[in-house]
Protein backbone atom coordinates (compact mmCIF):
# COMPACT_ATOMS: atom_id res chain seq x y z
CA UNK A 1 0.00 0.00 0.00
CA UNK A 2 1.55 3.31 -1.05
CA UNK A 3 1.09 6.65 -2.69
CA UNK A 4 1.37 6.99 -6.45
CA UNK A 5 1.02 9.62 -9.10
CA UNK A 6 -0.01 9.10 -12.72
CA UNK A 7 0.03 11.96 -15.12
CA UNK A 8 1.28 14.00 -18.02
CA UNK A 9 2.63 17.53 -18.11
CA UNK A 10 4.14 20.19 -20.35
CA UNK A 11 7.44 18.37 -19.92
CA UNK A 12 6.08 15.15 -21.46
CA UNK A 13 3.27 16.16 -23.77
CA UNK A 14 2.29 18.89 -26.20
CA UNK A 15 -0.76 21.06 -25.60
CA UNK A 16 -2.76 19.03 -28.20
CA UNK A 17 -2.32 15.92 -26.09
CA UNK A 18 -2.67 17.65 -22.72
CA UNK A 19 -6.01 19.17 -23.63
CA UNK A 20 -7.49 15.72 -24.34
CA UNK A 21 -6.66 14.55 -20.82
CA UNK A 22 -7.64 17.72 -18.98
CA UNK A 23 -10.40 17.46 -16.38
CA UNK A 24 -12.57 20.57 -16.18
CA UNK A 25 -13.48 21.95 -12.75
CA UNK A 26 -17.14 21.21 -13.39
CA UNK A 27 -16.34 17.56 -14.16
CA UNK A 28 -14.22 17.06 -11.04
CA UNK A 29 -16.87 15.49 -8.74
CA UNK A 30 -17.75 12.87 -11.32
CA UNK A 31 -14.06 12.30 -12.19
CA UNK A 32 -13.19 11.77 -8.54
CA UNK A 33 -15.95 9.19 -8.25
CA UNK A 34 -14.58 7.44 -11.33
CA UNK A 35 -11.07 7.55 -9.86
CA UNK A 36 -12.19 5.99 -6.59
CA UNK A 37 -13.96 3.28 -8.57
CA UNK A 38 -10.67 1.98 -10.00
CA UNK A 39 -9.70 -1.22 -8.27
CA UNK A 40 -7.12 -0.68 -5.54
CA UNK A 41 -7.66 3.10 -5.27
CA UNK A 42 -8.55 3.97 -1.68
CA UNK A 43 -7.91 7.72 -1.80
CA UNK A 44 -7.69 9.92 -4.85
CA UNK A 45 -7.09 13.50 -5.96
CA UNK A 46 -6.91 15.11 -9.39
CA UNK A 47 -4.76 18.12 -10.25
CA UNK A 48 -5.68 19.42 -13.69
CA UNK A 49 -4.25 22.68 -15.02
CA UNK A 50 -3.33 23.88 -18.49
CA UNK A 51 0.17 22.46 -17.99
CA UNK A 52 -0.54 19.16 -16.26
CA UNK A 53 -3.12 16.53 -15.39
CA UNK A 54 -2.03 14.38 -12.48
CA UNK A 55 -3.82 11.75 -10.42
CA UNK A 56 -2.58 11.20 -6.89
CA UNK A 57 -3.80 7.96 -5.38
CA UNK A 58 -3.26 6.01 -2.20
CA UNK A 59 -3.94 2.31 -2.14
CA UNK A 60 -2.95 -0.85 -3.91
CA UNK A 61 -2.37 0.52 -7.40
CA UNK A 62 1.35 1.08 -6.89
CA UNK A 63 3.59 -0.17 -9.67
CA UNK A 64 0.64 -0.17 -12.10
CA UNK A 65 1.91 0.83 -15.56
CA UNK A 66 0.76 4.41 -16.30
CA UNK A 67 -0.87 3.38 -19.56
CA UNK A 68 -3.02 0.79 -17.75
CA UNK A 69 -4.13 3.38 -15.21
CA UNK A 70 -5.07 5.90 -17.93
CA UNK A 71 -6.86 3.22 -19.94
CA UNK A 72 -9.01 2.41 -16.94
CA UNK A 73 -9.75 6.03 -16.11
CA UNK A 74 -10.38 7.30 -19.63
CA UNK A 75 -11.81 4.04 -20.98
CA UNK A 76 -9.06 3.60 -23.53
CA UNK A 77 -6.05 5.42 -24.99
CA UNK A 78 -5.10 6.50 -28.49
CA UNK A 79 -2.07 4.97 -30.09
CA UNK A 80 0.95 7.17 -29.44
CA UNK A 81 -0.34 8.46 -26.09
CA UNK A 82 1.66 6.07 -23.95
CA UNK A 83 5.11 7.72 -24.21
CA UNK A 84 3.66 10.97 -22.86
CA UNK A 85 2.41 9.43 -19.62
CA UNK A 86 4.37 8.95 -16.46
CA UNK A 87 3.92 7.10 -13.19
CA UNK A 88 5.74 7.79 -9.94
CA UNK A 89 5.62 5.78 -6.74
CA UNK A 90 6.48 6.19 -3.09
CA UNK A 91 9.22 8.75 -2.36
CA UNK A 92 9.50 9.75 -6.02
CA UNK A 93 5.80 10.61 -6.09
CA UNK A 94 6.11 12.64 -2.86
CA UNK A 95 9.19 14.40 -4.19
CA UNK A 96 7.40 15.24 -7.43
CA UNK A 97 4.36 16.72 -5.66
CA UNK A 98 6.57 18.86 -3.43
CA UNK A 99 8.35 20.17 -6.51
CA UNK A 100 5.07 20.85 -8.30
CA UNK A 101 3.64 22.83 -5.37
CA UNK A 102 6.91 24.78 -5.05
CA UNK A 103 6.65 25.81 -8.69
CA UNK A 104 9.82 23.95 -9.68
CA UNK A 105 8.04 21.83 -12.29
CA UNK A 106 6.17 24.77 -13.78
CA UNK A 107 6.77 26.12 -17.26
CA UNK A 108 7.71 29.44 -15.66
CA UNK A 109 9.91 28.22 -12.80
CA UNK A 110 8.93 29.63 -9.42
CA UNK A 111 5.47 30.88 -10.46
CA UNK A 112 2.94 30.90 -7.64
CA UNK A 113 -0.27 30.12 -9.50
CA UNK A 114 0.28 26.36 -9.25
CA UNK A 115 0.20 26.58 -5.46
CA UNK A 116 -3.38 27.87 -5.57
CA UNK A 117 -4.37 25.41 -8.26
CA UNK A 118 -3.18 22.41 -6.22
CA UNK A 119 -4.86 23.83 -3.15
CA UNK A 120 -8.16 24.14 -5.00
CA UNK A 121 -7.80 20.57 -6.32
CA UNK A 122 -7.19 19.36 -2.77
CA UNK A 123 -10.22 21.27 -1.44
CA UNK A 124 -12.40 19.79 -4.18
CA UNK A 125 -11.22 16.27 -3.31
CA UNK A 126 -11.87 16.85 0.39
CA UNK A 127 -15.34 18.15 -0.42
CA UNK A 128 -16.07 15.00 -2.38
CA UNK A 129 -14.61 12.90 0.46
CA UNK A 130 -12.13 11.39 -1.98
CA UNK A 131 -9.12 11.83 0.26
CA UNK A 132 -8.19 10.07 3.49
CA UNK A 133 -5.50 10.23 6.14
CA UNK A 134 -2.56 9.67 3.78
CA UNK A 135 -3.43 12.11 1.01
CA UNK A 136 -4.60 14.69 3.53
CA UNK A 137 -1.24 14.52 5.28
CA UNK A 138 0.65 14.50 1.97
CA UNK A 139 -1.05 17.58 0.56
CA UNK A 140 -1.00 19.56 3.80
CA UNK A 141 2.69 18.81 4.05
CA UNK A 142 3.20 19.83 0.42
CA UNK A 143 1.68 23.27 1.12
CA UNK A 144 4.07 23.79 4.02
CA UNK A 145 6.99 22.69 1.86
CA UNK A 146 5.88 25.01 -0.95
CA UNK A 147 5.75 27.98 1.39
CA UNK A 148 9.13 27.15 2.90
CA UNK A 149 10.81 26.74 -0.48
CA UNK A 150 9.52 30.13 -1.61
CA UNK A 151 10.43 31.95 1.58
CA UNK A 152 13.89 30.51 2.12
CA UNK A 153 15.22 30.35 -1.44
CA UNK A 154 15.29 32.73 -4.39
CA UNK A 155 13.12 30.56 -6.61
CA UNK A 156 10.27 33.06 -6.61
CA UNK A 157 12.43 36.17 -6.65
CA UNK A 158 12.92 38.50 -9.54
CA UNK A 159 10.43 39.28 -12.24
CA UNK A 160 10.23 37.13 -15.30
CA UNK A 161 7.93 39.14 -17.53
CA UNK A 162 8.67 42.48 -19.16
CA UNK A 163 5.67 44.09 -17.43
CA UNK A 164 6.54 42.99 -13.93
CA UNK A 165 10.23 43.88 -14.43
CA UNK A 166 9.16 47.42 -15.31
CA UNK A 167 6.85 47.69 -12.31
CA UNK A 168 9.52 46.27 -9.97
CA UNK A 169 12.00 48.85 -11.24
CA UNK A 170 9.45 51.61 -10.74
CA UNK A 171 8.91 50.51 -7.14
CA UNK A 172 12.64 50.48 -6.57
CA UNK A 173 12.89 54.02 -7.90
CA UNK A 174 9.82 55.56 -6.22
CA UNK A 175 8.91 53.21 -3.39
CA UNK A 176 5.13 52.98 -3.32
CA UNK A 177 3.37 53.75 -6.59
CA UNK A 178 0.21 55.27 -5.10
CA UNK A 179 1.48 58.81 -5.43
CA UNK A 180 3.14 58.39 -8.81
CA UNK A 181 1.81 60.06 -11.90
CA UNK A 182 2.01 57.63 -14.81
CA UNK A 183 1.42 58.38 -18.45
CA UNK A 184 0.96 55.82 -21.19
CA UNK A 185 1.53 57.23 -24.67
CA UNK A 186 0.26 54.87 -27.38
CA UNK A 187 -2.36 52.36 -26.36
CA UNK A 188 -0.75 49.25 -27.84
CA UNK A 189 -0.87 45.74 -26.47
CA UNK A 190 2.30 45.93 -24.37
CA UNK A 191 1.58 49.35 -22.95
CA UNK A 192 -1.91 48.17 -22.08
CA UNK A 193 -0.45 45.26 -20.09
CA UNK A 194 2.02 47.65 -18.50
CA UNK A 195 -0.77 50.03 -17.42
CA UNK A 196 -2.67 47.12 -15.89
CA UNK A 197 0.45 45.97 -14.00
CA UNK A 198 0.92 49.48 -12.59
CA UNK A 199 -2.70 49.63 -11.55
CA UNK A 200 -2.45 46.21 -9.89
CA UNK A 201 0.50 47.48 -7.81
CA UNK A 202 -1.41 50.45 -6.49
CA UNK A 203 -0.89 53.23 -9.08
CA UNK A 204 -3.79 55.67 -8.87
CA UNK A 205 -2.95 58.39 -11.42
CA UNK A 206 -2.73 56.85 -14.86
CA UNK A 207 -3.06 59.04 -17.94
CA UNK A 208 -3.48 57.57 -21.39
CA UNK A 209 -2.73 59.36 -24.63
CA UNK A 210 -3.16 57.90 -28.10
CA UNK A 211 -3.57 59.12 -31.66
CA UNK A 212 -7.01 57.54 -31.60
CA UNK A 213 -8.69 59.29 -28.69
CA UNK A 214 -11.41 56.60 -28.47
CA UNK A 215 -8.79 53.94 -27.85
CA UNK A 216 -7.16 56.12 -25.21
CA UNK A 217 -10.52 56.57 -23.52
CA UNK A 218 -11.15 52.84 -23.54
CA UNK A 219 -7.81 52.01 -21.88
CA UNK A 220 -8.20 54.90 -19.44
CA UNK A 221 -11.58 53.53 -18.45
CA UNK A 222 -10.18 50.05 -17.89
CA UNK A 223 -7.32 51.27 -15.76
CA UNK A 224 -9.30 53.89 -13.87
CA UNK A 225 -7.20 56.63 -15.48
CA UNK A 226 -7.79 59.71 -17.61
CA UNK A 227 -7.53 60.02 -21.39
CA UNK A 228 -5.53 62.90 -22.87
CA UNK A 229 -5.49 64.01 -26.51
CA UNK A 230 -2.26 63.10 -28.28
CA UNK A 231 -1.41 66.73 -29.03
CA UNK A 232 -1.57 67.54 -25.32
CA UNK A 233 0.53 64.84 -23.67
CA UNK A 234 3.75 66.89 -23.64
CA UNK A 235 2.06 69.54 -21.49
CA UNK A 236 1.73 67.04 -18.64
CA UNK A 237 5.34 65.97 -18.91
CA UNK A 238 6.81 68.13 -16.15
CA UNK A 239 4.64 66.49 -13.49
CA UNK A 240 5.19 62.91 -14.60
CA UNK A 241 7.01 60.23 -12.64
CA UNK A 242 6.69 57.37 -15.09
CA UNK A 243 6.27 57.49 -18.87
CA UNK A 244 5.40 54.42 -20.94
CA UNK A 245 5.68 54.88 -24.69
CA UNK A 246 4.56 52.50 -27.41
CA UNK A 247 3.66 54.62 -30.40
CA UNK A 248 4.26 53.60 -33.98
CA UNK A 249 6.03 56.88 -34.75
CA UNK A 250 8.94 56.39 -37.18
CA UNK A 251 11.14 58.78 -35.17
CA UNK A 252 11.86 59.57 -31.51
CA UNK A 253 9.06 61.51 -29.84
CA UNK A 254 11.13 62.20 -26.70
CA UNK A 255 14.55 63.77 -27.23
CA UNK A 256 17.19 64.97 -24.78
CA UNK A 257 16.96 68.46 -26.23
CA UNK A 258 13.22 68.56 -25.66
CA UNK A 259 13.18 67.35 -22.07
CA UNK A 260 16.36 68.90 -20.64
CA UNK A 261 14.62 72.24 -19.82
CA UNK A 262 11.67 70.42 -18.24
CA UNK A 263 13.97 68.39 -15.98
CA UNK A 264 15.23 71.48 -14.24
CA UNK A 265 11.69 72.36 -13.20
CA UNK A 266 11.24 68.88 -11.78
CA UNK A 267 14.00 69.27 -9.19
CA UNK A 268 15.40 66.03 -7.82
CA UNK A 269 12.38 63.86 -8.64
CA UNK A 270 13.53 60.91 -10.74
CA UNK A 271 11.88 60.18 -14.07
CA UNK A 272 11.42 56.59 -15.20
CA UNK A 273 10.76 56.02 -18.89
CA UNK A 274 9.72 52.72 -20.38
CA UNK A 275 10.00 52.53 -24.13
CA UNK A 276 8.29 49.46 -25.56
CA UNK A 277 8.01 50.82 -29.09
CA UNK A 278 9.92 49.52 -32.10
CA UNK A 279 11.41 51.73 -33.52
CA UNK A 280 12.09 53.36 -30.16
CA UNK A 281 10.13 56.43 -29.11
CA UNK A 282 12.81 57.76 -26.77
CA UNK A 283 16.19 58.91 -27.96
CA UNK A 284 19.03 56.89 -26.30
CA UNK A 285 20.76 60.12 -25.13
CA UNK A 286 17.86 60.78 -22.74
CA UNK A 287 19.15 57.97 -20.47
CA UNK A 288 22.34 59.98 -19.89
CA UNK A 289 20.44 62.88 -18.31
CA UNK A 290 20.62 63.20 -14.53
CA UNK A 291 17.80 61.46 -12.70
CA UNK A 292 16.31 59.97 -15.88
CA UNK A 293 16.23 56.22 -16.40
CA UNK A 294 15.16 54.88 -19.78
CA UNK A 295 14.50 51.19 -20.21
CA UNK A 296 13.64 49.81 -23.63
CA UNK A 297 12.27 46.38 -24.53
CA UNK A 298 15.71 44.79 -24.81
CA UNK A 299 16.81 46.02 -21.39
CA UNK A 300 13.60 44.77 -19.74
CA UNK A 301 13.73 41.47 -21.60
CA UNK A 302 17.34 40.90 -20.59
CA UNK A 303 16.46 41.52 -16.92
CA UNK A 304 13.56 39.07 -17.15
CA UNK A 305 15.85 36.44 -18.67
CA UNK A 306 18.46 36.91 -15.96
CA UNK A 307 15.79 36.43 -13.28
CA UNK A 308 14.63 33.25 -14.97
CA UNK A 309 18.20 31.97 -15.08
CA UNK A 310 18.68 32.80 -11.39
CA UNK A 311 15.50 30.92 -10.53
CA UNK A 312 16.70 27.84 -12.39
CA UNK A 313 19.97 27.96 -10.50
CA UNK A 314 18.03 27.67 -7.26
CA UNK A 315 16.79 24.23 -8.25
CA UNK A 316 19.51 22.23 -6.47
CA UNK A 317 19.06 24.16 -3.22
CA UNK A 318 15.29 23.68 -3.35
CA UNK A 319 15.75 19.98 -3.98
CA UNK A 320 17.92 19.58 -0.89
CA UNK A 321 15.22 21.23 1.17
CA UNK A 322 12.52 19.08 -0.38
CA UNK A 323 14.50 15.84 0.11
CA UNK A 324 14.47 16.38 3.88
CA UNK A 325 10.69 16.68 3.88
CA UNK A 326 10.28 13.65 1.64
CA UNK A 327 12.17 11.53 4.19
CA UNK A 328 10.02 12.92 6.99
CA UNK A 329 6.83 12.12 5.12
CA UNK A 330 7.91 8.63 4.13
CA UNK A 331 8.84 7.88 7.72
CA UNK A 332 5.37 9.04 8.85
CA UNK A 333 3.75 6.99 6.11
CA UNK A 334 5.60 3.81 7.09
CA UNK A 335 4.57 4.26 10.70
CA UNK A 336 0.98 4.94 9.69
CA UNK A 337 0.85 1.81 7.55
CA UNK A 338 2.25 -0.31 10.35
CA UNK A 339 1.94 1.49 13.67
CA UNK A 340 3.49 -1.51 15.41
CA UNK A 341 6.92 -0.74 13.92
CA UNK A 342 7.48 2.11 16.36
CA UNK A 343 6.18 0.32 19.41
CA UNK A 344 8.10 -2.91 18.70
CA UNK A 345 11.27 -0.92 18.26
CA UNK A 346 10.72 0.69 21.64
CA UNK A 347 10.32 -2.67 23.32
CA UNK A 348 13.46 -4.18 21.81
CA UNK A 349 16.35 -4.47 24.27
CA UNK A 350 19.33 -2.31 23.32
CA UNK A 351 21.87 -4.30 21.34
Amino acid sequence: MNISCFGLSHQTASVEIRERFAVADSALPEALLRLRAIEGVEEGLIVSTCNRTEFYVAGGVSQLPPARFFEEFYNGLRSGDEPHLFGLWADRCVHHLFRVVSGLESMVVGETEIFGQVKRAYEAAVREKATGRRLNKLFQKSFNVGKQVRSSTAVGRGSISVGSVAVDLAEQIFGKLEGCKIMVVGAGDTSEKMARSFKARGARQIFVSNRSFDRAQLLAQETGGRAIRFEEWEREFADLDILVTSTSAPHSIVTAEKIAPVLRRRGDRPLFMIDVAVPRDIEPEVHRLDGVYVYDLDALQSMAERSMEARKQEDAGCDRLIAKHVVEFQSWLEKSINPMIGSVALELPPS
Partner: protein
Amino acid sequence: MHLDFIGSFIFAADRTWIWLAAYCFVLASAYSTYALFAGKFMAPRLTFGLVVAGFVCQTIFLGIRGHAVGRCPITNFFELLTFLSWSMILIYLAIGSSYRLSLLGVFTAPFASLLSIWALLQPEAQAVPVKHPVNPWLEAHTSFSIVACGAFALAGLAGLMYLIQERQLKTRRPSSVFFRLPPIRTLVVANSRLLWLGFGLFTIGLGTGFMIGQDVDWLKVAWSLVVWALYGGILLARIRRSMATRWVATLSIIVFGLLLSMFWGIRFISDVPPVR
Protein backbone atom coordinates in the same frame (compact mmCIF):
# COMPACT_ATOMS: atom_id res chain seq x y z
CA MET B 1 30.65 48.32 50.79
CA HIS B 2 29.95 45.56 48.31
CA LEU B 3 27.94 47.95 46.10
CA ASP B 4 30.75 50.50 46.28
CA PHE B 5 33.14 47.87 44.99
CA ILE B 6 30.86 46.98 42.06
CA GLY B 7 30.34 50.67 41.35
CA SER B 8 34.04 51.40 41.33
CA PHE B 9 34.62 48.41 39.04
CA ILE B 10 31.99 49.56 36.55
CA PHE B 11 33.35 53.10 36.52
CA ALA B 12 36.93 51.89 36.12
CA ALA B 13 35.97 49.62 33.25
CA ASP B 14 33.71 52.07 31.38
CA ARG B 15 35.80 51.45 28.25
CA THR B 16 34.50 47.87 28.31
CA TRP B 17 31.12 49.19 27.18
CA ILE B 18 32.74 50.54 24.01
CA TRP B 19 34.35 47.17 23.42
CA LEU B 20 30.92 45.58 23.76
CA ALA B 21 29.40 48.19 21.43
CA ALA B 22 32.16 47.54 18.88
CA TYR B 23 31.49 43.77 19.01
CA CYS B 24 27.78 44.40 18.41
CA PHE B 25 28.45 46.70 15.45
CA VAL B 26 31.00 44.34 13.87
CA LEU B 27 28.62 41.41 14.23
CA ALA B 28 25.76 43.47 12.77
CA SER B 29 27.96 44.50 9.82
CA ALA B 30 29.07 40.93 9.11
CA TYR B 31 25.55 39.55 9.38
CA SER B 32 23.89 42.18 7.22
CA THR B 33 26.61 42.03 4.56
CA TYR B 34 26.22 38.26 4.43
CA ALA B 35 22.44 38.55 4.15
CA LEU B 36 22.73 41.18 1.43
CA PHE B 37 25.18 39.39 -0.82
CA ALA B 38 24.41 35.74 -0.12
CA GLY B 39 20.76 36.27 -1.02
CA LYS B 40 19.65 34.38 2.06
CA PHE B 41 16.71 36.75 2.58
CA MET B 42 17.05 36.53 6.34
CA ALA B 43 15.01 38.84 8.47
CA PRO B 44 17.08 41.94 9.32
CA ARG B 45 15.82 41.97 12.91
CA LEU B 46 19.04 40.48 14.26
CA THR B 47 21.07 43.27 12.65
CA PHE B 48 18.69 45.85 14.04
CA GLY B 49 18.82 44.25 17.50
CA LEU B 50 22.62 44.18 17.48
CA VAL B 51 22.86 47.84 16.50
CA VAL B 52 20.38 48.82 19.21
CA ALA B 53 22.41 46.73 21.71
CA GLY B 54 25.57 48.59 20.62
CA PHE B 55 23.76 51.89 21.02
CA VAL B 56 22.67 50.95 24.55
CA CYS B 57 26.29 50.06 25.45
CA GLN B 58 27.47 53.42 24.12
CA THR B 59 24.74 55.22 26.07
CA ILE B 60 25.83 53.46 29.29
CA PHE B 61 29.43 54.45 28.61
CA LEU B 62 28.51 58.07 27.96
CA GLY B 63 26.43 58.12 31.16
CA ILE B 64 29.25 56.72 33.28
CA ARG B 65 31.88 58.90 31.64
CA GLY B 66 29.71 62.01 31.88
CA HIS B 67 29.27 61.34 35.58
CA ALA B 68 33.04 60.85 36.00
CA VAL B 69 34.13 63.99 34.13
CA GLY B 70 31.27 66.10 35.41
CA ARG B 71 30.26 67.39 31.97
CA CYS B 72 29.26 66.26 28.48
CA PRO B 73 31.81 63.51 27.78
CA ILE B 74 33.64 65.03 24.83
CA THR B 75 36.95 65.78 26.51
CA ASN B 76 39.30 63.72 24.36
CA PHE B 77 39.42 62.14 20.92
CA PHE B 78 38.26 58.74 22.22
CA GLU B 79 35.13 60.29 23.69
CA LEU B 80 34.60 62.48 20.65
CA LEU B 81 34.56 59.50 18.28
CA THR B 82 32.25 57.58 20.61
CA PHE B 83 29.90 60.54 20.87
CA LEU B 84 29.92 60.91 17.08
CA SER B 85 29.03 57.25 16.53
CA TRP B 86 26.33 57.45 19.22
CA SER B 87 24.86 60.60 17.63
CA MET B 88 24.73 58.98 14.22
CA ILE B 89 22.75 56.02 15.52
CA LEU B 90 20.56 58.24 17.68
CA ILE B 91 19.55 60.29 14.63
CA TYR B 92 19.05 57.20 12.61
CA LEU B 93 16.71 55.71 15.20
CA ALA B 94 14.87 59.01 15.45
CA ILE B 95 14.17 59.50 11.74
CA GLY B 96 11.61 57.66 9.65
CA SER B 97 11.36 53.91 9.50
CA SER B 98 10.92 53.71 5.74
CA TYR B 99 14.54 52.87 5.05
CA ARG B 100 15.71 52.05 8.57
CA LEU B 101 16.60 48.40 8.25
CA SER B 102 18.57 48.52 5.03
CA LEU B 103 20.42 51.70 5.84
CA LEU B 104 21.14 50.67 9.40
CA GLY B 105 22.12 47.14 8.63
CA VAL B 106 24.23 47.50 5.57
CA PHE B 107 25.89 50.89 5.89
CA THR B 108 25.45 52.37 9.34
CA ALA B 109 26.69 49.34 11.27
CA PRO B 110 30.04 49.14 9.43
CA PHE B 111 30.59 52.87 9.87
CA ALA B 112 29.69 52.66 13.57
CA SER B 113 32.15 49.72 13.84
CA LEU B 114 34.93 51.78 12.27
CA LEU B 115 34.31 54.73 14.59
CA SER B 116 34.24 52.47 17.66
CA ILE B 117 37.45 50.68 16.70
CA TRP B 118 39.12 54.00 15.89
CA ALA B 119 38.05 55.27 19.30
CA LEU B 120 39.42 52.19 21.05
CA LEU B 121 42.80 52.70 19.36
CA GLN B 122 43.17 56.13 20.98
CA PRO B 123 45.77 56.27 23.78
CA GLU B 124 44.18 59.18 25.66
CA ALA B 125 41.02 57.48 26.89
CA GLN B 126 41.01 58.13 30.63
CA ALA B 127 38.33 60.22 32.29
CA VAL B 128 39.75 63.55 33.50
CA PRO B 129 37.34 65.28 35.89
CA VAL B 130 36.60 68.91 35.05
CA LYS B 131 38.53 71.42 37.16
CA HIS B 132 36.59 74.57 36.33
CA PRO B 133 32.85 75.27 36.54
CA VAL B 134 30.98 73.86 33.57
CA ASN B 135 30.42 76.43 30.80
CA PRO B 136 26.92 75.76 29.37
CA TRP B 137 27.85 77.44 26.05
CA LEU B 138 30.78 75.09 25.66
CA GLU B 139 28.55 72.11 26.47
CA ALA B 140 25.95 73.25 23.93
CA HIS B 141 28.62 74.00 21.32
CA THR B 142 30.29 70.59 21.51
CA SER B 143 27.14 68.49 21.77
CA PHE B 144 25.25 70.31 18.98
CA SER B 145 28.28 70.18 16.70
CA ILE B 146 28.86 66.46 17.20
CA VAL B 147 25.19 65.53 16.85
CA ALA B 148 25.21 67.59 13.62
CA CYS B 149 28.15 65.49 12.45
CA GLY B 150 26.08 62.38 13.16
CA ALA B 151 23.40 63.73 10.81
CA PHE B 152 26.03 64.60 8.18
CA ALA B 153 27.44 61.07 8.52
CA LEU B 154 24.04 59.59 7.77
CA ALA B 155 23.53 62.04 4.90
CA GLY B 156 26.83 60.81 3.46
CA LEU B 157 25.73 57.18 3.83
CA ALA B 158 22.39 57.95 2.16
CA GLY B 159 24.39 59.68 -0.62
CA LEU B 160 26.62 56.65 -1.01
CA MET B 161 23.61 54.36 -1.28
CA TYR B 162 22.05 56.73 -3.82
CA LEU B 163 25.17 56.55 -5.98
CA ILE B 164 25.17 52.75 -5.82
CA GLN B 165 21.49 52.57 -6.79
CA GLU B 166 21.87 55.22 -9.49
CA ARG B 167 24.84 53.44 -11.01
CA GLN B 168 22.91 50.18 -11.17
CA LEU B 169 19.95 51.85 -12.86
CA LYS B 170 22.16 53.61 -15.38
CA THR B 171 23.98 50.40 -16.36
CA ARG B 172 20.56 48.76 -16.89
CA ARG B 173 21.83 45.60 -15.23
CA PRO B 174 20.71 45.98 -11.64
CA SER B 175 21.88 43.16 -9.39
CA SER B 176 19.87 41.53 -6.62
CA VAL B 177 21.49 43.99 -4.19
CA PHE B 178 19.66 46.80 -6.00
CA PHE B 179 16.30 45.35 -5.01
CA ARG B 180 17.30 45.05 -1.35
CA LEU B 181 18.48 48.63 -0.89
CA PRO B 182 16.00 51.48 -0.34
CA PRO B 183 14.25 53.10 -3.35
CA ILE B 184 16.30 55.83 -4.97
CA ARG B 185 13.62 58.49 -4.30
CA THR B 186 13.63 57.62 -0.58
CA LEU B 187 17.40 58.05 -0.54
CA VAL B 188 17.16 61.47 -2.19
CA VAL B 189 14.61 62.60 0.40
CA ALA B 190 16.61 61.09 3.30
CA ASN B 191 19.82 62.73 2.09
CA SER B 192 18.09 66.09 1.81
CA ARG B 193 16.43 65.91 5.25
CA LEU B 194 19.63 64.80 6.93
CA LEU B 195 21.60 67.60 5.30
CA TRP B 196 19.05 70.13 6.53
CA LEU B 197 19.01 68.63 10.02
CA GLY B 198 22.80 68.54 10.19
CA PHE B 199 23.08 72.06 8.85
CA GLY B 200 20.60 73.40 11.41
CA LEU B 201 22.37 71.68 14.32
CA PHE B 202 25.80 72.69 13.05
CA THR B 203 24.67 76.31 12.77
CA ILE B 204 23.50 76.24 16.41
CA GLY B 205 26.79 74.58 17.37
CA LEU B 206 28.78 77.29 15.59
CA GLY B 207 26.66 80.09 17.05
CA THR B 208 27.01 78.83 20.60
CA GLY B 209 30.75 78.41 19.99
CA PHE B 210 31.07 82.19 19.72
CA MET B 211 29.44 82.58 23.13
CA ILE B 212 31.94 80.42 25.04
CA GLY B 213 34.01 83.43 25.98
CA GLN B 214 37.36 81.61 26.21
CA ASP B 215 40.45 81.64 24.02
CA VAL B 216 39.36 80.94 20.47
CA ASP B 217 41.24 78.50 18.27
CA TRP B 218 40.93 80.39 14.97
CA LEU B 219 42.05 77.37 12.98
CA LYS B 220 39.08 75.39 14.29
CA VAL B 221 36.77 78.32 13.65
CA ALA B 222 38.00 78.76 10.10
CA TRP B 223 37.74 75.08 9.35
CA SER B 224 34.24 74.91 10.86
CA LEU B 225 33.16 77.91 8.79
CA VAL B 226 34.49 76.27 5.64
CA VAL B 227 32.49 73.11 6.38
CA TRP B 228 29.40 75.16 7.25
CA ALA B 229 29.73 77.13 4.00
CA LEU B 230 30.18 73.97 1.97
CA TYR B 231 27.06 72.34 3.39
CA GLY B 232 25.21 75.64 2.98
CA GLY B 233 26.35 75.75 -0.64
CA ILE B 234 25.07 72.23 -1.30
CA LEU B 235 21.69 73.08 0.19
CA LEU B 236 21.49 76.36 -1.70
CA ALA B 237 22.27 74.58 -4.96
CA ARG B 238 19.58 72.07 -4.12
CA ILE B 239 17.00 74.79 -3.50
CA ARG B 240 17.93 76.55 -6.73
CA ARG B 241 17.93 73.19 -8.54
CA SER B 242 21.25 74.08 -10.06
CA MET B 243 23.10 70.93 -9.04
CA ALA B 244 22.46 67.38 -10.25
CA THR B 245 21.29 64.94 -7.58
CA ARG B 246 24.32 62.80 -8.33
CA TRP B 247 26.59 65.72 -7.38
CA VAL B 248 24.65 66.47 -4.20
CA ALA B 249 25.14 62.83 -3.16
CA THR B 250 28.82 62.89 -4.07
CA LEU B 251 29.44 66.14 -2.21
CA SER B 252 27.60 64.80 0.86
CA ILE B 253 30.28 62.12 1.05
CA ILE B 254 33.25 64.35 0.23
CA VAL B 255 32.32 67.13 2.65
CA PHE B 256 31.67 64.63 5.43
CA GLY B 257 35.13 63.17 4.75
CA LEU B 258 36.51 66.69 5.10
CA LEU B 259 34.63 67.11 8.37
CA LEU B 260 35.99 63.85 9.71
CA SER B 261 39.50 64.85 8.73
CA MET B 262 38.93 68.11 10.63
CA PHE B 263 38.51 66.16 13.87
CA TRP B 264 41.70 64.27 13.28
CA GLY B 265 43.83 66.91 11.59
CA ILE B 266 43.18 69.78 13.95
CA ARG B 267 44.52 67.79 16.90
CA PHE B 268 47.94 67.74 15.29
CA ILE B 269 48.18 71.24 13.92
CA SER B 270 46.22 73.22 16.48
CA ASP B 271 48.19 74.94 19.24
CA VAL B 272 45.21 74.98 21.61
CA PRO B 273 44.80 71.77 23.67
CA PRO B 274 41.56 69.80 23.40
CA VAL B 275 38.58 71.25 25.23
CA ARG B 276 38.50 70.38 28.90
